[in-house]
């Protein structure tokens, strides 16, 4: 039924049907259906409070769906979320960095938690830090970092274990134009890597999107076809199934 050959051959990276999430009596997400094929980039748009971050946290196995079927990298959430650990790179609002450790120590801790061998980890950390031009400051404590520098370390942390699926919640926030450009090497579109991108800048985000999903304030999907920049390349959520 899927008209995207990509999804049919490699299996979907993300498949949601009827996903809802409640907070108390409030519905944060309402009956979401969508499919993201492997290697694709999905961009999540929508006003504040429309459930974008909630969706991302559910995909990251950090939040349980209230109802609906959620499949991420062929694993059914939340029952099989253990299969996904270490395969997802999550960059949320919070940088997930310990303020009293240095940037490098934070990354080393991340490497240890993900079981990356020491030499391998050190090489990667060196490489990634250099890419983001953070090598000089990496041995300072995070507490002295500016928000932009924290974001750069957080990006390194999110991709250190080379995840198959990247979940990025406004990855450009706090970054200067140079930082945004540099970070593309780590979190930009890459061969075979699936990405979900929450963004407040529709135009920039659309440029690299294979799929654009717009959430409305009630937590449902409201895509208007005419919003899509290039309908030929992009599919809207729920379409084609």
């Amino acid at each position, binding site marked *: 039924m899927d008209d995207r050959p990509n999804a049919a051959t490699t299996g979907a990276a993300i498949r949601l049907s009827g996903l809802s999430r409640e907070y108390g009596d409030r519905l944060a997400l309402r009956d979401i*259906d969508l499919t993201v094929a492997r290697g694709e980039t999905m961009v999540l748009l929508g006003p504040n409070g429309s459930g974008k971050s909630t969706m991302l946290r559910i995909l990251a196995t950090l939040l349980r769906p209230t109802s609906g079927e959620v499949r991420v990298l062929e694993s059914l959430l939340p029952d099989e979320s253990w299969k996904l650990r270490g395969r997802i790179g999550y960059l949320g609002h919070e940088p997930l960095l310990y303020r009293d450790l240095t940037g490098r120590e934070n990354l080393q801790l991340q490497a240890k938690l993900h079981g990356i061998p020491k030499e391998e980890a050190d090489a990667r950390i060196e490489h990634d830090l250099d890419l983001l031009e953070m090598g000089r400051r990496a041995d300072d404590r995070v507490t002295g970092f500016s928000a932009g520098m924290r974001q750069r370390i957080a990006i390194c942390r999110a991709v250190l274990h080379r995840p198959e699926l990247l979940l990025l919640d406004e990855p450009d926030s706090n970054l200067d134009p140079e930082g945004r450009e540099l970070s593309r090497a780590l979190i930009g579109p890459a061969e075979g890597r699936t990405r979900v991108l929450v963004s407040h800048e529709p135009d920039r985000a659309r440029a690299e999107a294979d799929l654009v999903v717009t959430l409305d304030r009630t937590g*449902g999907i*409201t895509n208007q076809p005419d919003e899509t920049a290039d309908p030929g390349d992009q599919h809207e959520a*729920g379409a084609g199934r």
Partner: protein
Amino acid sequence: MFDATPSDAVGYVFSAYLFFLLMVLVYISILGAKFQRINRELGELIEELEAENAEPDAVVEAGVAVDSGSNAPRKESSV
């Protein structure tokens, strides 16, 4: 050791049993009040429902989807 006189003991025993019975009574009346409230709320809801069923046009104008609930067709997300 202090020993209560028999008449004293009777008073204590009865006050213990009385306390217990009073507590049960109070608890049950609290429960009763709760059920009365639920009953009233239910009545209000029924009235509301009937009133809205009686004049469906007004409801649509007010923008409240009454009996459709979550079964209302949603144009974008349904597949």
